[in-house]
């Protein structure tokens, strides 16, 4: 067991974890944050994507011990985040989810694309989503929803921020 301290969705957390425990399992099993989903557990499906120190990361490929002293944001967080709010509205409006398994990570990935100004065209959005697999929608509505949210955010703040 190794002692770790980190912030999850803004709250300071301290725990003892076995080094082999992934960040994903730590979030789901120890913190009950089950919005982070596990599909493939080897970095391909993207369903477990969270933010670590403000950057998207695969929580199945990060050990919880390696997150000592770091900040983690999961889909349960993002309170007051205007980009996630716009994406949620847009996903709802454009029917961009069916079973919902990939949705939390789709939102987190899309937020990162918008903030890095990498959602300027359909091609760019599809490229940016290559690491997030959806088995229901065929992606069309997800891409439309992200393009629409990016447009709204761009109108609110012309610098993409």
């Amino acid at each position: 067991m190794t002692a770790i301290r980190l912030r999850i969705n803004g709250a300071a957390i301290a725990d003892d974890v076995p080094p082999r425990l992934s960040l994903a399992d730590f979030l789901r099993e120890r913190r009950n944050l089950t919005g982070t989903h596990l599909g493939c557990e080897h970095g391909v499906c993207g369903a477990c994507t969270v933010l670590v120190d403000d950057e998207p990361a695969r929580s199945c490929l990060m050990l919880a011990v390696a997150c000592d002293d770091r900040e983690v944001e999961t889909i349960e967080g993002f309170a007051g985040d205007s980009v996630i709010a716009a994406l949620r509205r847009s996903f709802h409006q454009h029917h961009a989810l069916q079973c919902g398994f990939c949705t939390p990570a789709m939102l987190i990935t899309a937020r990162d694309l918008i903030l890095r100004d990498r959602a300027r065209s359909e091609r760019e959005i599809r490229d940016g989503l290559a690491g997030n697999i959806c088995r229901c929608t065929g992606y069309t509505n997800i891409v439309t929803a992200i393009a629409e949210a990016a447009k709204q955010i761009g109108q609110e703040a012309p610098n993409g921020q």
Partner: protein
Amino acid sequence: MKAPAVDYVRPRSLAEAVELLAKAKGEARVIAGGQSLVAMMNLRLASPGLLVDIARLPELAAVRDDSDSVTLGACVTHAAIEDGRVADPSRGLMPRVAATLGYRAIRTRGTIGGSLALSDPAAEWPAVLAALEAEVTLCSPTAQRSLKCTEFTTGIFETKLAAGEIIEGVRIPKLSADARWGYLKLCRKSGEFASALAVVIADRRRSHWRVVLGAANGAPLVLDDTSRLVSAGGGGEMGSAIAADLDRASDRHFDEFQRDLHSVVALRAVQQVLA
């Protein structure tokens, strides 16, 4: 699946890290971004006794921008290179390559040193750094040594990294202002490992011309005839030069389909330079 049980330690300095590695006598693996290692552990393809986490060592995050080269610390991430947050010796080649490497959520954690240490035959950096004449610096408790990247990777997941050694950084010579490069990666989906990959450097001022194939069933494959023809400014025989180079690489055992992919990718990357 879940990773097997393992011990974990996060040293505070490079010196402490190499000492821990030496003490573990081959039972330890170095972990930086972990984007391949943790996947391999989850699939039970790797089960080290001890993980030595070097991801946050300040020595390995350092970047030195000299007059003729840039030295990137081993733990510089692909995302930092993609975003231009570190000095670029390659006039845009390395940021372009980084943007095609895996997915953003992989690039934010994966490191250039980790990519070299694993030397996946389909990985980008071993081929690109070989084309750029880069040198890798290795550190052990007793010594430091440098190796050319063309010599460092010796085969499929095989390198000259000795037990107890850690990659400290990569020194990459700067391309001249009028140098040209070509890069083409063939994969079915953005971000996947390459099925074929070619890098071309044409730097007349430094008399450096090199065409390198990645995903070549082994270490990055330098195409000598093709490189010579590029140095001569090209010509109608490019296809034959590539064919001759691929004939000579019979130890790679390319099947007909792979051979076609490599030929086409090499030719198109060369055309980017000669255009």
